[in-house]
């Protein structure tokens, strides 16, 4: 690793209270399409794009910590991004979440590049 590690910044995405229990909301940050998910009060942020055939994941049903892709139904573990089942083995990108002053926030790196998982 010879590359300089780009500076991290904490991006506030939206108020946690705006995401209903077991619901999700899509948020754009520059080029990034993120999905803020509330899984039984646990907040997760994932890339809003399915690793199978690129469907937005917004509106996908959340149950017991898993998000279902609205298109073909692959269920992703919101903590790890790992899919269940046989349709795809590719995980979706997940972002570590912090709650700051009631906001759901994630750490992004100002590299100018797209995130590795995207």
């Amino acid at each position, binding site marked *: 690793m010879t590359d300089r590690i780009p500076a991290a910044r904490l991006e506030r995405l939206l108020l946690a209270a705006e995401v209903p229990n077991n619901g999700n909301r899509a948020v754009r940050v520059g080029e990034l399409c993120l999905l803020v998910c509330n899984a039984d009060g646990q907040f997760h942020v994932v890339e809003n794009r399915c690793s*199978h*055939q690129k469907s937005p994941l917004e*509106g*996908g*049903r959340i*149950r*017991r910590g898993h998000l*279902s*892709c*609205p*298109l*073909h*139904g*692959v*269920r992703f573990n919101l903590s790890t991004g790992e899919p*269940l*089942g*046989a*349709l795809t083995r590719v995980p979706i990108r997940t972002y570590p979440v912090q709650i700051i002053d009631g906001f759901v926030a994630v750490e992004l790196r100002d590299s100018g590049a797209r995130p590795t998982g995207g």
Partner: protein
Amino acid sequence: MSEPLRHPDTMSGRDPSLLRGDVIDGERYYSPEFAQREWEHLWKRIWHVAGRTAELPEPGDYIVHDFLHESVIVIRQDDGGLKAFYNSCGHRGMRLAWDASHAADGLHCPYHGWVWGRDGVLKDLPDPDDFPQGNPCGELSLVEVRCDTWGGFVWYTMDPKAPALLDYLDPMPGVYANYPLDTCVRVFWMKVNLNTNWKFATDNFSESYHTRTAHPQVPPWIDQDYWSSRHEMWPNGHGRTVQPMRPSLRDRLPEGEPHPFDALLRAWDIDPDSYPDFETKAMQGWLDLKAQKRRLWKERGYVHYEHMDDEQLTDSPHTVIFPNVTISFLPDNIIFFRTEPHPDDPSKCTFDLWCMAFPVEGQTEVESIMADVQPLAEAEFQHRAFDGGRGVPEIAGQIVYQDMLLAEGQQRGWRSQGYRDCYLAGQESRVRYFHEVLNDYLEGRR
């Protein structure tokens, strides 16, 4: 004291004179030809369990049941009902759904993007005008499969002429009507790959003769004496052994060793030391336990006891539903066991173990019976290879694990030229009965 229900069609499951005496040959456990006949004449005709109704709480929720090379989707409809379809796209046959999930606006085929509504009717497709034979939208449907529910289980059959589910299950729905089966929570859910034919489990669960040898921990807890058990079988091929959940009188734990029955009595505020001797404790304590449960169930929140009869409050009716489902209806737990054949190798199968518990208010954990204490919540699915037991540490040492340990050895023995037929005890009569009903299916008598 309320009497247990005796169905008029009940036959003794301990009376070999009710049997034809069909030979239980070894070949049926490993021959691909025999397995193919089972597919044609048995599996295509019986009712299969696809899952629990609790897996499908909302419209659009679906489950997928793969069986041999077939696959069926069951999906909750907008009106709350269920429909089942073969898992094959009406365009060019692509498998439509892979695992249980939720269909937001329908089932989207991942190949050319046809969209099938939750009701199975084609609702959208690319280039609808490019079909000289006519736009299929709203015209084509997925091929429907009959489905129904009983006991909190979702069932389907591939046979349009099969009897209705409740007739197929008869008399189980009546026999177990006192249990609020759809309220129980599946706290442990595992599928295990085993190196044995699927019939191993039905044979095994049709008798308790093996218990003293294979499950030495059980007799102090569930009476294993065949004379105090009731062995029953019914014309549809189902059967059960009802055993009192009290110590067998001829099995004693060494003096001083903590006794599971004492713990059970204490849990219901009965002093095990109040009985003059072991026999009185086993026999009178068991009666006292019924009375005490009747007295205390309500204040303790055991709402599932409300309609149970005295037998159901304390006993263990271990029940085989022909051909491959076994359910133990315990006072506080429902344990579901099922084997299904491997798609290509009749010497292999999968074994489903679902441990369910009736929720009691205030409890956060429950004894699952086959997988120790588990949180009182719907469990996630786990699929393992048995691997001589190493693959399933969660159930190591449990009754069902001890059964699985026997499976491979019996499969080997069935393939030996030294095996010709069984030599059955009276209390094992249901083993042969199972094969006779199976033969009826295969030979066109049913």
